[in-house]
Structure formats: C-alpha cells, structure tokens
C-alpha cells in the first residue's frame, strides 16, 4: 500500500496553542481535522508537512450557537455528518445541509469537517496522482514542476476548487473567523478564495478557521445543486448555491447571490446571473435569463471529470434547476 511519510504529530490543548505551534513551525506545518484530504495527499506526496497539528479533538471548535433570526455560528470541527442532519440547518439554511450531504460518502462524512471542506485543496488530473505518476509527466506547476499541463502556456495553476460548502457560504455571505498567533480577524467568505490553483486560499498558512458565521436568514431562500458523475463519492465538477431575499410580497427578488463552484480555481459569485433576478419575479423567463448569464460567466477547463464544454453548458441547466428549487421553496 501507499505509505505515509514521516512527520511529527502535535496535539494542542486549544486553538490558541495550535496557532502558536503554526507560528513556530512556519509553512512546514499543516492542520488536520478529519484528515480525509490531507492523509491521502501525504501518501501521494502532494503535501509533505514535517509537522501536522491536530484539531479534531478540540471541542471549542465544534459548537452551533446563535439563532437563525440573529445569525448562526458554526464551529469548523462540525462533521459533515452533523451538518447534513442538523435540524436548524435543514429547516432554515437547507443549502448548507444539502451541500454537506452531497460530499464524498457516508464513512468519510463522519470524519470530514466544515473547516476541512472550506479549505479543501484544489484538484486536477495532473496533480491528484501519486509521486511516481507525476514524475512521468515531469510534475506540474502546483507541485514540484514548472508546467501547467491544463494550459501549458499559462503561468498560473488552473486546478479546480472542489469544495461544496464554499459556494454555499459565498451565497449566504457568511463570515469566517481566522485565528493566528497575532490575533483574530474576520473575513467574508468571498474574500477567502483566490482564483489561483496554488494560492487558492487567502487564509494564511499560520491561520486557523475558528468559526463560520451564517447571517440571519429571516425568510431568505436558499438552494444548492451539485453535478458529479456518480451518486456518491465524487468531488463536484460543478455546484451552484443560491441565496434569495424577497420583498414583502414574497414574490419579487429584492437581492440575490448565485455562487458557482467546481469550475475554476475558486468559487465565484455570478453577478450577471444575480442581476438578472433583482426586481423580478422568478418566472421561467427570468430564471432562464439568469441561467444563460451564469453560463456565459463560466469557463471550465479540461482538468476534471467529463467533457469540459459539456460542463459549461451544464452551468445553465444547473443554475436554472437551483433557481427552480428556490422558487419551489418560496411558495
């Protein structure tokens, strides 16, 4: 079997101590909670931390506090299993529960966490391979090489953002708390990601996600749709998260956010798609216009499963279906 390389495992007493360890070790240290992303990647030498700092045991990172009326705060150690069946999420923030449910498989969901999925590494055919396989292609820009095989003329990495929860957080405009030895800061979910397969997180390596704030939901509508080859296990090759605020009549869209993931190196908000909705009722024509706008806004590349031009045309279908689902939830 593939073997893990040697490393030192650190078990801090609390998040603050974890931040101190990170500061001391520098970029040679990485965090682990569920390990469903990190351990296989270490076996394939995609990641080679000397020190791994465990967070999973920290109860302080696991709670759900607040209320949907005032905003809910989620601990990053909540497992995907806990998220997918949490009654408040299911009732008020269904897109969060739906995205969590759609991730990987039941056994992995009992290990994988909210924080882990928000920070999950970008993926690519040329990168998610063993060391020996990558050696065959002389490695790639993201690890150990100097060519991006997806776009060999390119100077950036095009690995695909593969988190299902991030688009939901973008659509909800969630806020993410980051802790480092130097203190705490809070950023909008949209600020968390860069459209770069390597530096895909603006979270600094010495920072720990300590909480995710979901804004008050009072009557807002959410939905989530994911595209993947199979009914389980697979990472997204497209996902769509919708958030709609309605006017008092509960028919007209006052504000909207449509987030798209699994296409480029970061999840993104499609402004043209959202703009097509604002001030309108969700008629089939309005939905179709938003869906077309979203497709025109999306440029997938040939670096993950299924045909990439087909995936682009699916953006339109998936945005439409996500909006139809939202429309259904409005009534």
């Amino acid at each position: 079997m593939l073997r893990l390389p040697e490393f030192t495992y650190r078990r801090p007493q609390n998040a603050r101590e974890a931040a101190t360890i990170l500061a001391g070790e520098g970029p040679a240290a990485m965090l682990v909670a569920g390990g469903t992303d990190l351990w296989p990647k270490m076996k394939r030498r995609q990641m080679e931390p000397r020190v791994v700092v465990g967070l999973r045991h920290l109860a302080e990172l696991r709670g759900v506090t607040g209320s949907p009326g005032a905003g809910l705060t989620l601990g990053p150690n909540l497992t995907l299993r806990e998220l997918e069946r949490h009654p408040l999420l299911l009732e008020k923030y269904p897109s969060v529960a739906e995205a969590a449910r759609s991730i990987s498989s039941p056994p992995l969901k009992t290990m994988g966490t909210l924080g882990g999925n928000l920070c999950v590494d970008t993926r690519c055919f040329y990168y998610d391979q063993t060391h020996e396989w990558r050696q065959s292609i002389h490695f790639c820009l993201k690890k150990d090489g100097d060519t991006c095989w997806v776009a060999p003329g390119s100077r950036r990495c095009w690995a695909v953002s593969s988190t299902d929860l991030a688009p939901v957080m973008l659509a909800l405009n969630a806020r993410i708390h980051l802790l480092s030895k130097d203190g705490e800061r809070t950023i909008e979910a949209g600020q968390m990601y860069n459209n770069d397969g390597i530096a895909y997180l603006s979270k600094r390596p010495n920072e720990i996600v300590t909480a995710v704030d979901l804004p008050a939901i009072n009557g807002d509508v959410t939905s989530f749709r994911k595209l993947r080859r199979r009914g389980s296990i697979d990472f997204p090759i497209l996902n769509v998260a919708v958030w709609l605020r309605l006017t008092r009549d509960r028919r007209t869209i006052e504000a909207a956010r449509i987030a798209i993931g699994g296409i480029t190196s970061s999840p993104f908000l499609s402004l043209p798609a959202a703009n097509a909705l604002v001030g309108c009722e969700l008629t089939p024509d309005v939905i179709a216009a938003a869906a077309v706008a979203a497709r025109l806004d999306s440029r997938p590349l040939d670096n993950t499963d299924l045909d990439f031009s087909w995936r682009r045309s699916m953006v339109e279908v998936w945005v439409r279906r996500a909006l139809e689902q939202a429309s259904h939830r409005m009534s």
Partner: protein
Amino acid sequence: MNIIGKPLRKVDAVSKCIGRTMFADDIVLPQMLYAKILRSTRPYARIRNIDTSAAESLEGVKAILLGRELPITFGILPVSQDEHTLAIDVVRYAGEPVAAVAAVDEETAEEAVRRIKVEYEDLPPIMSIEDGLKPTDTPIQAYAEDGNIHKTVSFTFGDTDAAFEKADLVLDGLFFYQGNTHLPLEQHASVALYHPEDRLTLWSSTQTPHYVHRALARVLEMTPNRIQVIACPNGGGFGGKSDPFSHEIAVAKLAMKAGKPVKIALTREEVFYCHRGRHPVLMRAKLGVSKDGNFTGLSFQTILDGGAYGSYGVASTYYTGALQTTTYHLPAYKFEGARLFTNKPPCGPKRGHGTPQPRLGLEIQIDKAAELLGIDPADLRLRNLVPADSLTVNWLTIRTIGLRRCIEKIVEASGWKDKFRKLPYGRGVGLACSCYLTGAGLPIYWNNMPQSGVQLKFDRSGLVTIFCGSTDIGQGSDSILAYIVAEVLGIDCSSIRVVTGDTDLTPVDLGSYSSRVTLMTGNAAIQAAERARDLLDEAVAAELKIPRNRIVAAEGRMFDAEDPSRSVDFAKAVQLAEARFGTLGTTGCYSPPKSAAKFKGGGVGPSPTYSFSAAVVQLAVDRETGIIKIEKTWIAHDIGRAINPLLALGQVEGSVYMGLGEALMEEHEFRLGVHKTPSMLDYKSPTSMDICPVETILVEEPDPIGPFGAKEVGQGPLLPIPPAVCNAVYDAVGVRIDEIPVTPEKILSALKAKSQGKDGRYGPSSFPSVEYRDPVFVMPPWEGGDGRAMNEPEYTRKGT
C-alpha cells in the same frame, strides 16, 4: 436432491464476513521482507542506464533485482512469451516494472526504489489504433506480424457476398467498445518463501496457479517439482489475475537472493498497470436480413488495441469473431480481426473475454434491422435462433439452448410489449441477447491431459477432503465442489473440507477462467465421488448382506432402500470400506469433448456447452443534460441447472452491474503517455447509488454435459447489458450511440445533430484500412465438408 439446487451458505462465508479469510496480503512470515517495484515513467523508451548505488547504500535494503538477472521471457500463451520480469533495455508502457527491491519494511523499500536512477531515451509512443496501423521503424515487439500489427486472423464460412446480395436489407455500421479494467477489490499480492532445502513456495492472489507454476519454473530455471504455488482466496479476479505477473516472479527471485521470505502488495495504481483488461475494439458489422426477418449472413471486422504485450491477446482476437454465430442462425459468416501493439498496459481477458465488444455491434445492428423491417426486436431474434443440438456456421457444437425461454421470460417480466416504442419521450427499453462459453475446449498450452482433476481422501471420522487445483476467486468454486461431493455421497457440507489451488497438494485444474470451473471441476468431482460410492456401497452392502444396488446414501447415512431401518452412518461406511479395500481415496478428472472444428484457428470458440442470456434495460434520459438514469434491468440466464441458485443470482447481478459500468462510464484513457485515472476515485465505476434493481430469472434446462445439468453463469450475463443500454437510449430519445461508454455529452451531441437534420448518431465515423491475412475458407456444416479448411492460405507476413 438434498443439496443441489438449494440456496446454501458458502463453505467459507463466515470467515469472509467476519474478516478472517487469509488473503495473500494477510500472510506474515518470520523475518519477512517487503518488496517494491520501480516502474517505468516513460511510455516507450530505451533504458540507457540504471544506477542502483544510492539504493544499495540505504540501511535496511536486503536485495535489489534488475531485468538482466532474469533474461528468460514468459507469457500466458505459448505464442506470446514476450514479457520480462523486469524490463531489459526497453520499456514499452508507463508502469512497466524496471527494478525491484526487498527491504526490512515497506517504507524502506519505497525509499530505495525512489533512489534508483534510470536514464531513458524516449521513443515515439504509439497510443491509438490509428498510430498502431502506421508503418514504423521502432516496432514495439519485434515478433509482430507487420509493424505494430501483432496478429491478424481471417475466416470465411460460406459465401457472404452472395448472402448480402440475397438480402433485402444490409446494415453496415461501425462501433467502438472502449477499454476498461476489472477493478477487483483485492489488489494483487504475493509472498515468496525460499526453503533451505532449495524449494520455493509462492502464495499469490492468482486465478491460475498452474500457469504461474509453469512461468516460475521457466524464468527461474528451476525444475517445477521444486516449486509450490498456492493460490490464496482472491478478493475478486474477473480475469485480471489470470496471467503470470512480473511481481510474482520478482518476489520469488528476491526471496532467493535475500534468503528471507518476501512479500509484495501492489497499490491500486499498480493494479491498473497490471491491467489485462478489456481490449478497446473498433469494429465494422455488416448484417444481411431478408424482408421477412431472416438473417442471410454476417461480416465482421475488428481491430483491437492490445497494449504493449501479448497476454491472452491472440485468443482475445479470435474471440472477437467466435461467438457471433451461436445465438442466431447465420447461413454465411466472415470474420477478420487484427490486434495491435500500443504503448499501454497489456489488455487481456476481462469477464466475457473478447466477446462483449462484438456483441455490442451485433445486437445494435439487430435492433436497427428490426426497426427498418417493422418487426419487434424480440420477435426478430426469436425468428433466427440457433437450434439445439446443432452445428453453427463456424462449426461450434450447440447442445442445449434456452435462449427462446430467456427472451420470452424477459419480454413478459419487463412488460416489453407495452413499453417498447410506447413509453413517453425520454424513457425507453432496450433488449439484447448473448451467449458464452462454459469452459474453453482447449487448454492454453497443448497437451492431452485432463483440464481438471479432483482427488478425494476419506478419514475414519467420516470427513471427506476434496483436493482440486481450482481457485476460489469469490465466485464460490470451493463451495460448488463441496455441494457436488456432498450430494453424491449423501452427506452434509460440514463433513467436507476443500483444499484447492496448491500445486504441491492438489491435482491440476487449469484455473478460474473461461467459465470452466463448475463444469470441469464439477464433472471431475462427480467422477471421483461416484468411484468412492462404488467402494462404499460394496462395503456397506457386504455388511448389511444386501445387493449393492439397494444402497442409498442420504443425510449422512447409507441405507437399505427396501428397509431404511437398516443402515450405517457415513463414518462407519468409510471404516467398513477402509477395512475391506485399504486406505481410501479416489480421483476423477474431466476432458472436454473434441471439437467439430478442424481448421487452423478453430481452437478458440469450442466449448463443452454454451450459456445464453437475454436482458431488457429500462432507462430514462434527461434530454437537457444527456444524463442516463437506469431504472431497472430484467435478465434471464440459461444456466442449465443452478447448483446453488443464490450464488448464481450473485453472479448474474454482479455481471449486470459490471456491464452497466462499462456501458455508462468505465474508460481506460491515456494522456501524455500515461493512464489518465489510475485510482478508484477517478476511474469511474458505478457505486450502489448508480445502479438499478435487477430482476433475475434463471432458466433451467439441464444440459447433458454439465454436472447435474449446470452451465456457466459467471460471465455471460454481462454481455447483453451494453447493447441493451444503447438500444434503450434509442427507444428513449431516438439517437444511436454506437459506442460505449454512453456518456452524457455523446447523447447531447447526437440529439443536437438530429435536431439539425443530421444523422442522430454518435460513434466512429471511419474504419481504417487493414491488411488482414488471406482468409481460411471453411464450408458451413450444411453445405458439406468436414470442418476442415478448403484452402491452405498463403501467409505472406512474417511470424506466421
């Protein structure tokens, strides 16, 4: 019957369920070392130099092995002895073994392998059928017929030109069947022990210990009687563990060099490189049909993308032409096949070996013909069925054929008549049939010994031990042996031990391939058990003072049929027989009947008897996305008789799911010269969320050749699934997908073409010109002749 036909538990079920089965990777021996293999990173290259110094200096490294130390080649077929244990001078695919290291633990072996420096000089890799047909200065294998054309075959049975002229309708179409792999859950593993007495033992996850035994003896230059091969229980095989493999020989040599036992356990990625999976096949199928729906003739051409080595490929090439004739009567038939060498892991036998690909083309053509003639596709097939007890156009002997009942059963069970062309747009049903071998008529290397042997040993406790060289790969062959012996001796399976797949202990059985095991080991077991019955009956008859023919064996006792109160228990019967005859033991064996085909190349296709399947797949196509949802599959399988209907059901359902995987998503694809997705995550195979309920109907018409009438069930039921899916897609949305996998973008592409007034089809658009060899002419049985070729064709190519 007390045992046969009952859904009994497998003899090894509990161990499997609670994790106690000892697979090869579970074996741990004192002082055992671990081996790792360095594999080629280049698809095609000369090896300039291998520097092992940095590995040698690593603490814990105990032995390093390079190709030159084992210069003798091996291969499963006598005509394709083209593999080296480790590459010498040339590597022919990315993933090919180049060097091996044994060290104190796996981490050290891995580090040592990483320290070996290989200098390569790249050669232009051949990665497609198109490239493989081009002339080349650097052929992948020097022994190929011509350039990278490994092997061509060509047969003509009767006059197909006249058949097409006579036809009212001739369908001429191109099809492509993508390559895919077995994906057994258990990754290959082997442990080698070199004894101080100059003997070698190899435990391995193999389907064919006898052939591994022969390959080890050949390459290691040891007499076979110093080598013991033990086939461990396999966690799935599907044909992927039927070749002797480099790692098996390397680990043996490392154990000899290091003087300590050595284990190797392959990673999933390495299993993808072992491969021997389904050949990608491009094909042209030309079918002639009269307006009243009778097939007048078939012409079939295939090109197989073989990968870098021979493996079973020559047999696979013949198989792409062998079984088109066994389901429907063909008055004339022509077949031309060619296998190419390419710089990919070698293709070989996967469940259905070479026959699912042509079955796709044939069954789609029949669906097209039915539509053009306005005949229901089920009826068109029924009209053309091969009769029982007949010879096919290519001289294959059909004994029992339950295909008529199979078709009738699925038509009824699926509600076919109410659904076909009647479901709303987007939903459809498709039907297809197939046939498969119950064991190959000939062994892989020529010999006139039995293909299967069984020995029985009787203990005074009443325990019967069955010795047989067969290998249980999860299909339940150990249990089948136990059921059959128990039935004949009238005892319970708990009084039976089964010892299999050990070349020191068990008589030869050729292995778990070509669906041969139940029929061949079963018949051998019946013979051995009946010979034992003779002895037991005589001893018990003497004890009870009655004639022998009054002895009945049942429920662990031997009775007087006329006075059941007079009996002895089975242990007592054994004791009486041992007292009378001395130490008790019997043997049995099986050799298939001689084939009617006497022409060169006629050795591939004959089987003691054939199984038949018919399936209906119902699915929904999302017209916006092209995504298919399989709703249900009905399948009827002519099994002759189910020794254990529960195990048969498992084989049918497993075949259906594997067929759906091939039809919908599985793909061996290469990019930059390397396998694109060598992992369980990225090589897409269906999960339990992606398949459908399966309704299985076992059609039981006992076959006179099979043990208790049984025929095969392990492979055949896969065959109708891919064409049934394609036919159902057409019924659902009116487009023809003439290749698999049927992915969403192919459906959308065909729908788009159709909406633009073009041909609503997705599939290959051209068939390259191939110089097939001159055909062997054979007269069909009904035109006279004796199964011999009428000509001795002039072979112009080298290597014939």
